[in-house]
C-alpha cells in the first residue's frame, strides 16, 4: 500500500471515530458534491466531515492538524467569492447538522444558534416573540448564520440595521489548536480586545465558529414599501441622494435598471413598464405616523426627479408583490443569458450616478450586457455581467470587464466588496485597496491565529490561491465566478 493511501485510510478511520461512518464522506462521487459554492471556483476536498456538535468540531480539528491537512468550513455553499471552496483539498467541515437554536432570551433579545442555522429560519423561529434577526442576504432562505459570520454578510435591510458584524454579540470558536472557547457574549462591554469583531468577516481563516450569539431586534410596528418608476437611471440615482439628503434613512433602498426590469417582467410579471429606465424600491420601518410623514417626503422627492409612477404598499401581501421583482431578479437574468458574473463593488452614495455610467461604458467597450440590481441606499453595486460560457474566450473578457468595474469603484473611494467577501474571487484586487504594508499586517494577524496556515488556506490574500490539486478543472474556468 502506498503511503498516501495508508495515511488516508488512517485519516478516515480517525474521523469516523469522531462523527460516525455516515457523516464522513471520502468517496470521489460524494466529495465532488462539495467542490464549489455560488461561484465557478472549484476544488475537491480530501474528505467531508459533517459534525453534530462543537465537541465533534474540536475533535475533527485535532485530527486534521495531526495529518497536516487544511480545514475549510462550509455552510450552505451559497457564497459568492469562493470562500467555501476547498481549492487546496483537505478536510471540509460542513455545518449542515449543526442547525439548532440553543438558547432564546426574549427579555434580553438575544439567541444562541449553531452555525448551520439557516438565516431565514432564525427569524421565523423568533417571530412569535415579535423579534427578528436583521441581516437578510438575498440568499437568506438557504444561507447559514455561520456563513454570514464568515463573510460579514449584508442584505437589503443593512441600510438601516447594519451588517452581520453589528448583530453578533459573541462566538464560541475552535482555534486551530483545537481549543474551544467563548469570546464576547451577552456582556455589552466585553473585556479586552474585540476578538469577535476581528473574526466576523475573516472568511473562516482565523478560527472555526461553533456557536453564535446573535442580537435580535423587536419587529418594527409598521412597514411601508414604495416602488418608484423613473425614466432613467440618472433620475433614480439623483432621487436616492435626495432622499438621504432629506434626512431619511429607509430600512432598504434597492434599484434595478432597464435590462434587469425587462427580464424580471417577463419572469415574474411584477407589472413594471418595459420602457422604465430605473426602478427604485424603498422600504420604511417605524411607527405608522413616522412612515406616513417619511413616505410623503419620499413621494415629493421622487416627483422632483421626474418619477413616472409611485406605488405604495402597507399590507404584507402587497409589499411582497412589490418585492417579488427585486427578489426574483437574479433568477430572471437567466432569460437573458445562460451565465452571469456578479460583482459586489461599493461606492460613496453620491457617486452612484457617475459610477453606473462608467459601468455601462465598460460593458459597451467589451460588448457585454450588464444588468444592475443593487443596494442603492448604501452604494453597494451588483453589476451582473451577462454572457454565454460556451463562447470561446469569453470568460477572460468577462473577468477583465469585472475587474475594470471594481477598479472604478475603488477609484471612486469605494471597495471591491461590500458583502460577498474576497475569497478566491477578488484576492487579486485587494492590493488596490491596501498597501503592501497593510496587507502584511493582516497576514501577521492571520499568522498569529494560525501559524501553519491551515484554516481555509488560499483565501483573501493576493497570490494565496490554492497551489494544491485542482482535479481536472481548467484553472481559467475556475477563475470566472459564474452563477
Amino acid at each position, binding site marked *: 500500500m502506498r503511503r498516501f493511501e495508508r495515511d488516508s485510510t488512517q485519516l478516515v478511520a480517525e474521523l469516523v471515530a469522531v462523527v460516525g461512518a455516515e457523516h464522513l464522506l471520502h468517496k470521489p462521487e460524494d466529495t465532488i458534491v462539495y467542490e464549489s459554492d455560488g461561484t465557478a471556483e472549484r476544488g475537491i476536498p480530501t474528505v467531508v466531515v459533517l459534525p453534530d456538535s462543537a465537541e465533534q468540531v474540536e475533535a475533527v480539528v485535532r485530527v486534521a492538524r495531526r495529518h497536516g491537512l487544511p480545514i475549510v468550513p462550509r455552510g450552505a455553499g451559497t457564497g459568492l467569492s469562493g470562500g467555501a471552496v476547498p481549492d487546496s483539498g483537505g478536510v471540509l467541515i460542513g455545518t449542515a447538522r449543526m442547525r439548532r437554536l440553543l438558547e432564546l432570551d426574549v427579555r434580553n433579545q438575544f439567541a444562541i444558534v449553531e452555525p448551520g442555522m439557516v438565516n431565514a429560519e432564525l427569524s421565523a423561529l423568533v417571530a412569535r416573540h415579535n423579534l427578528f434577526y436583521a441581516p437578510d442576504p438575498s440568499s437568506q432562505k438557504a444561507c447559514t448564520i455561520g456563513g454570514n459570520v464568515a463573510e460579514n454578510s449584508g442584505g437589503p435591510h443593512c441600510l438601516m440595521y447594519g451588517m452581520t458584524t453589528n448583530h453578533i454579540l459573541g462566538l464560541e470558536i475552535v482555534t486551530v489548536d483545537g481549543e474551544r472557547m467563548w469570546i464576547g457574549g451577552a456582556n455589552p462591554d466585553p473585556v479586552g480586545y474585540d476578538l469577535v469583531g476581528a473574526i466576523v468577516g475573516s472568511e473562516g481563516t482565523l478560527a472555526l465558529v461553533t456557536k453564535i450569539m446573535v442580537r435580535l431586534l423587536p419587529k418594527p410596528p409598521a412597514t411601508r414599501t414604495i416602488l418608484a418608476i423613473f425614466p432613467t437611471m440618472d433620475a433614480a440615482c439623483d432621487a436616492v441622494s435626495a432622499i438621504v439628503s432629506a434626512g431619511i434613512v429607509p430600512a432598504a433602498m434597492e434599484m434595478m435598471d432597464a435590462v434587469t426590469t425587462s427580464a424580471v417582467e417577463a419572469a415574474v410579471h411584477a407589472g413594471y413598464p418595459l420602457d422604465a429606465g430605473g426602478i427604485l424600491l424603498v422600504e420604511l*420601518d417605524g411607527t405608522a405616523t413616522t412612515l406616513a410623514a417619511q413616505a410623503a417626503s419620499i413621494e415629493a422627492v421622487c416627483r422632483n426627479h421626474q418619477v413616472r409612477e409611485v406605488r405604495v404598499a402597507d399590507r404584507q401581501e402587497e409589499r411582497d408583490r412589490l418585492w417579488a421583482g427585486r427578489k426574483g431578479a437574479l433568477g430572471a437574468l437567466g432569460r437573458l443569458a445562460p451565465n452571469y458574473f456578479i460583482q459586489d463593488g461599493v461606492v460613496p452614495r453620491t457617486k452612484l450616478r457617475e459610477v453606473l455610467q462608467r459601468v455601462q461604458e465598460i460593458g459597451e467597450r467589451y460588448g457585454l450586457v450588464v444588468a444592475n440590481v443593487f443596494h442603492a441606499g448604501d452604494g453597494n453595486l451588483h453589476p451582473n455581467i451577462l454572457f454565454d460560457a460556451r463562447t470561446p474566450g469569453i470568460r477572460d473578457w468577462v473577468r477583465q470587464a469585472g475587474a475594470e468595474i471594481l477598479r472604478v469603484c475603488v477609484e471612486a473611494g469605494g471597495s471591491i466588496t461590500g458583502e460577498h467577501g474576497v475569497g478566491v474571487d477578488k484576492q487579486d484586487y485587494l492590493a488596490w485597496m491596501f498597501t503592501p504594508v497593510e496587507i502584511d499586517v493582516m497576514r501577521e494577524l492571520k499568522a498569529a491565529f494560525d501559524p501553519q496556515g491551515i484554516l481555509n488556506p488560499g483565501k483573501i490574500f493576493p497570490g494565496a490561491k490554492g497551489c494544491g490539486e485542482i482535479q481536472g478543472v481548467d484553472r481559467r474556468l475556475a477563475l470566472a465566478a459564474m452563477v
Partner: protein
Amino acid sequence: MIPERVLHPADEREAAQLLLAAQQAEDAVVPVGGATLLDVGNAPSRYAVAVATDRLTGIVEYNPGDLTIVVRAGTTLAEVEAELRPHRQFLSVQAPFPERATIGGTLAANVSGPLRLAYGSIRDAVIGTRVALPSGHVAKSGGRVVKNVAGYDLSKLFIGSFGTLGIIVEAAFKVFPLPLTRRALVVPAAGVSNAMDFAVGVARLGPGLLSLAVVNDRLAGVMQLEGASTIALLGGTAEATAELMAEICSQAPAQNVRVLDDSESDAVMQAMRDFPGRATVRLSARMSRPHVSAADSSSVEALSYPTIGTSFLFAPDWNGDNVTTLRRDAARSGGNVMVWRRSPALEHASTWGEVGTELTLMRAVKSVFDPQRIMSPGRFVGDI
C-alpha cells in the same frame, strides 16, 4: 504618572516615526488625546514618552450626501459636531467633555454615550481607521464607505484597545440625520428597580426612543431631579414624538411625568453624557439584578442604561471588596465590572477583572501590532 517627555507629531507619518524611534530606544509610549479619560485602565508599568495627537486634527473629508465623515484623531468631538450641525447631521457617539475629548481617545476608551440604544455603540459607527504602529508604518483598515468587507476588520481591535496597540491617527464614521424634534421625559419611580423595569417595558415601544436611562436617588439629586427616575429621550417627527410621549405617559406608574423644556433637556443629556468622566466603576451585565444592587445605595451615584446593560457608578467610598462583591454578582450573568476612574480607596482593586482562555488570543493580537510591548505597557487586561 509623569512621562519623561511629550511629543507632538505634525502628521501621521511623523507619529509612526516617533513610535519606531521609541521602539528602538525601548521607551514606553502612551498616546494622549484630550486626557479626559487618560487614567482609565491600569497605570502603565513604564511611561517614557507621551505622544499627543493635538496636531493631528481636522476634518479630512465630509460629504453630507454620503452620511460619512473622515476626521483626524486629535479632533475634538465638539469640532466634529460643529462641522455636522449646519447639515442637520450628527455623530451618534458622545463622550464626556466633548470640548476636550478627541476622536482617537474616545475610540481607544470605547465610549459610546447615551444614544447607544438607537444608534448602536461606537464600534457600529466606525467604518475605517488609520493607525500608526511601532513598526514605523501607518496602516489603514476598512475604508470610507458604509459597507465594506475587504480584508480583516482591524479597526475593531483598536476600538477599546486603550493605546496598547498603536496610535489611532484617523477614523471614518457613519453619521446620522438629526431627528426633526427631540423631547426628553423624566418618569419618577419608587426606587431604581421599578425605574429599570419601566425602562425595559417602554423599550418595547421601539422606534423613536433615542435613549433610556435610569438615575438613582443620589444622582437624581445632583441633576436636580426628584428621586430615582427613568429618563427617556425621544426623537423623530413632531407627530410621532407626541404620539410616543403620550404612550409612555399612559404606561407611567403615576401621573407625574415631567416633560423637559429644551434647556432642561440639554442639561439632563449633558449630565448623562459627562457622567462617565467622573464615574469610578463601570458595571456591564444584561441582567438587571447587579445593576439594581449597585444603584440601590445612598452612597453611590448611579447612571444605568438597562436596555443596554451598562451602568456607570460614582462610588467614592468603595474599596476593592465592594468591587469584588459586585463582580461576583455580575459574573453570574456573564457580565463584568471595570474600575473606571480610580479613586484613592480603589487604588489596589483589579481594574479589569478576570478574562478567560481568550487572553491567549489577545496576547497574540498584541504581538502582531506591538511585539516589543512599548505601547501603554501594563495598562490593559492581563497586563497587556
